[in-house]
Each structure stands twice: as structure tokens, then as C-alpha cells.
């Protein structure tokens, strides 16, 4: 195991005023693997992703992508690093001023300077990849259902064929069947691209489907990490409480204490 991890976080701290969100977070993701981070709402899962992407600046700690430190990277270095990433946002975050196909092609046109005609062809192809017909391409995002918006968001995330893809609660807000469809698409698309992925979710069905490895975030730290198969026998009472969705357990006691 001497290979450089694709992503490595160590000792990452991030606070908003008095709220200490990340408190010394350590995490490594091997190239080509799929890590799912589970944790309750508001525990800082999205904040963690945004720190890696440079959308938020951590207060301290190190974040490396392919061995390159991102927290101290210059503007142009950071731009290079960002080109490795695709991200599916929690609410899809589609640009509502643009039609669906321009959303999907956005990174190709603005980021890679592709001409519109070629970009549209690729966009339609990516839409097909996520199960959407070509006539969806000219609709506005506001005309789509939540599940279709997630698919378009997925198509946008994979359009530039990134090396690393982040999924922020890909199934939240979807019905169980649509959630499973999205999970399948994620697994297929990731396999196509051979990408490294980091997903965050509190949906255990989704985690079991898309993960190689699972980690649990609690009180700003990773308190457990293991392969998907070991999650039911982790012996960690926090993990047990979370995956079984029990109201009572160590997690509740912590809430009461504070």
C-alpha cells in the first residue's frame, strides 16, 4: 500500500463562528474506490466535500488530491485540480436560466472551450446514458421532476469524464424506487469511467449499493471506517445505532448532554 491515495485528508478543522463542524477529520480514498460517508443531518458531510473542492477553506489541516496539497494551491493550480472533479449536488443545483442540455454541456463549453454543436451532441449522449430521452434536452430544469433533475445533475457531473466524482445525498428526497434507479445509474456510470468516488448519505440502502468502503462521520471526526461487508458487524455502537435508525443509543445521549 505505497500508492498515493487519490484523496487524503488529515487533521482537517472547520468552524463557523462558535460552531465547530469538522474537528480533526482524517480520511483517505484509494484510487478507483468508492467511499461512502454516512452521518446524521448537519454533521458536516457537505462541509467536508466543500473543503476538498476548495469551496470552503478549512481552518487547519491538510487536504491532498493525487498527493498535491489543495489548501495552499494557487488559483491556477486549483483550477487544474478542479478539472479532475465532477459533483452531483444535493438539490441537483441545475442552472435554471439554461436549458437542460446546456446544463449538461456547461463544463464542456465554459471549462474546456468546446463548440456548442459538439457539446450538445455529447450532452444528448450523456442524457441518454442516464435514461433521459433527447427531447428532454431542450426543456428548462424547472419543468423536470425531482428524479429527472437528479439524472440531469448526474449527466452534468459525468459529462467531462472526471477522475473523481462526489455525490452529495444522491437519493435524498426521492421515492425508494427512483432512489434505487439513481443508485444503479451511479454504479454504472462510475464503472464506465473507472472514477474514484466519495458519496455522502444517510440512506443506508444507497450506501450499501454504491460503496466499497463506508466511513461514519460523527462530531467532526471519522469514528469508524471499514469495508461495506463489515458494516453490520462493526462492533461500533454509534454505527449500529445509525444503520438501524434507532432513536435511542449513544448518539441521542450526546445530543441531550450538549
Amino acid at each position, binding site marked *: 500500500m505505497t500508492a498515493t491515495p487519490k484523496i487524503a485528508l488529515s487533521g482537517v478543522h472547520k468552524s463557523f463562528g462558535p460552531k465547530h463542524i469538522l474537528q480533526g477529520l482524517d480520511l483517505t480514498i484509494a484510487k478507483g474506490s468508492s467511499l461512502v460517508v454516512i452521518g446524521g443531518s448537519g454533521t458536516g458531510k457537505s462541509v467536508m466535500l*466543500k473543503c476538498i*473542492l*476548495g*469551496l470552503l477553506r478549512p481552518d487547519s489541516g491538510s487536504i491532498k488530491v493525487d498527493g498535491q496539497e489543495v489548501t495552499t494551491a494557487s488559483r491556477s493550480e486549483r*483550477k487544474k485540480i*478542479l*478539472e479532475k*472533479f*465532477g*459533483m452531483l*449536488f*444535493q*438539490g441537483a*443545483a*441545475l*442552472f*435554471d436560466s439554461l436549458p437542460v442540455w446546456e446544463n449538461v454541456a*456547461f*463544463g464542456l463549453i*465554459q*471549462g*474546456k472551450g468546446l463548440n456548442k454543436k459538439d457539446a450538445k451532441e455529447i450532452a444528448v449522449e450523456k442524457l441518454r446514458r442516464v435514461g433521459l430521452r433527447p427531447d428532454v434536452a431542450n426543456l428548462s430544469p424547472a419543468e423536470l421532476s425531482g428524479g429527472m433533475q437528479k439524472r440531469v445533475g448526474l449527466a*452534468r457531473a459525468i459529462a*467531462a469524464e472526471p477522475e473523481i466524482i462526489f455525490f452529495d445525498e444522491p437519493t435524498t428526497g426521492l421515492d425508494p424506487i427512483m432512489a434505487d434507479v439513481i443508485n444503479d445509474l451511479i454504479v454504472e456510470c462510475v464503472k464506465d469511467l473507472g472514477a474514484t468516488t466519495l458519496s455522502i448519505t444517510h440512506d443506508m440502502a444507497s450506501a450499501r449499493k454504491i460503496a466499497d468502503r463506508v466511513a461514519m462521520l460523527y462530531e467532526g471526526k471519522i469514528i469508524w471506517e471499514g469495508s461495506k461487508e463489515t458494516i453490520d458487524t462493526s462492533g461500533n455502537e454509534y454505527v449500529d445505532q445509525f444503520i438501524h435508525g434507532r432513536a435511542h443509543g449513544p448518539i441521542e445521549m450526546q445530543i441531550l448532554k450538549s
Partner: protein
Amino acid sequence: MYNPLAIVGSVFLASLAEVGRVFSFAAHAVSHLVRPPIYWRIILKQMWLIGYNSLPVVGLTALFTGAALAQQIYVGGSRFNAENVVPGVVVIAIVRELGPVLGGLMVAGRVSSAMAAELGTMRVTEQIDALVTLSTDPFKYLITPRLMAAVITLPMLVLIANIIGIMGGYVIGTERLGLNAGNYLQVTYDYLEKADVYSSLVKAAVFGFIIALMGSYHGYISRGGAQGVGKATTNAVVSAFIVILLANLIITVIVFGGKG
């Protein structure tokens, strides 16, 4: 804790910090003017949104104000048998002050709020974060084009407002107050100086910058869901109003600063 001086002091420091943040936001946006790419298509679209859609409200404001002004000056002037000052005072008041200031305020009401609402929604729905992950600088793509469009468009709008304002005075002056039509236009023309027109357009450009800056800034930094966007919208309009009026005072004192 309840020392009034301490409260005043901390409010003062907080305002100072806010002013500093606005300035650095503006500097960042302006710095993108010299770093390609420049999104011309977005600039044109924004010019259309700001300019064309503001024409009715700006035009009507100017028309009614010019007309009311002529009526008031006529009544005031007639006490000294000086009804003939109407065209001269109207043109100076409109071009130097009322055209740019009222035009700027009306556009601020429309445009600062719309920009804050749009960018605020983009912020809270993570669309701005999405831009970054798609290798696009949100300042370059969102903020700089809005600032440029407003700086270009406001002078055009104010020029039109000035003309309509003068026409409003003309209509009341000639139709209702019985002033001689040919004479009215001649006096208007004689009173109007190049410097007045230039200062009017400079004010308009500055106000355009303020309108887009306040709308963009408050939208860009907003957070906290729909409520946060609502707050951003209000803050954008209120701050745009105050800063426009302050900037107007400063420009007026600089350009027309003589005491005689």
C-alpha cells in the same frame, strides 16, 4: 455590556467591516475586466434586462417629475413675475439632479432586488458552487457582466429620462401654463451646458455600478434559504438607495462645488 458607547463603537466597527467587504468584492469583480474570457453574451443579455425592461418606469417617472417641476416653478416664479425661468430651471434640475437620481433609484428598485434575488437563489441552491466545480469562475461569469452591463446601460436610460423629463415640463409649460413653445425650447437649449450633460452621464454610470454592486453583493453572500434571499433583496435595495444618494451628493459637490 450595555455601555452605549461600546454599542455605538461595535456598530461602527461592524459597518466599517461591511464597507471593507463590499470594496474588496467590487475590486475582485473589476479585476476580471482585464482577465479573459469576457462573457459578452451575458453582458448583452443583462443590458437588455436592465435597460429595456426599465424604460417604462424610468420614462414615466421622468415625465411626471418634469411636468410637476414646471408647474411648481411657474407658481413660485410668478410671484416675481419670472415665469420665463421655467424652461431653464427645469432643464438644469432634470439633467443635473432629477434625471440621474430618480432614474437611478427607480432602476435600483427593479434591478438591485432582481439581481439579489437571482444570485441569492443561486447561492442557496448551490448553483454558485456548481459553477466552480464546472471550471467556471462565478465572479467572472455572474458578477462582472452584471456590473459592466449596468455601467453601460444606465447612462443610456438617464439620457432618455432627461429628454422625457424636459418634454414633461414642455408639455405642461406650453399646454397648461401658456408659455410660448418656440421660446421654451430655445431657453432650454440656451441654459443647457455640456458639463451638465457629462455630469449627468457620469452620475448615471456610477449609479449603474452601485445598483449592480449592491444587488450582486447581497445576493452572492446570502445564505439561509428563502428567508436569507428575502433579506438579501431588501438589503440590496436599501443599500443601493442610500449609496446612490450619497454618491450623488459627492459628485454634485465635486462638479458644481462653487459657492457662488
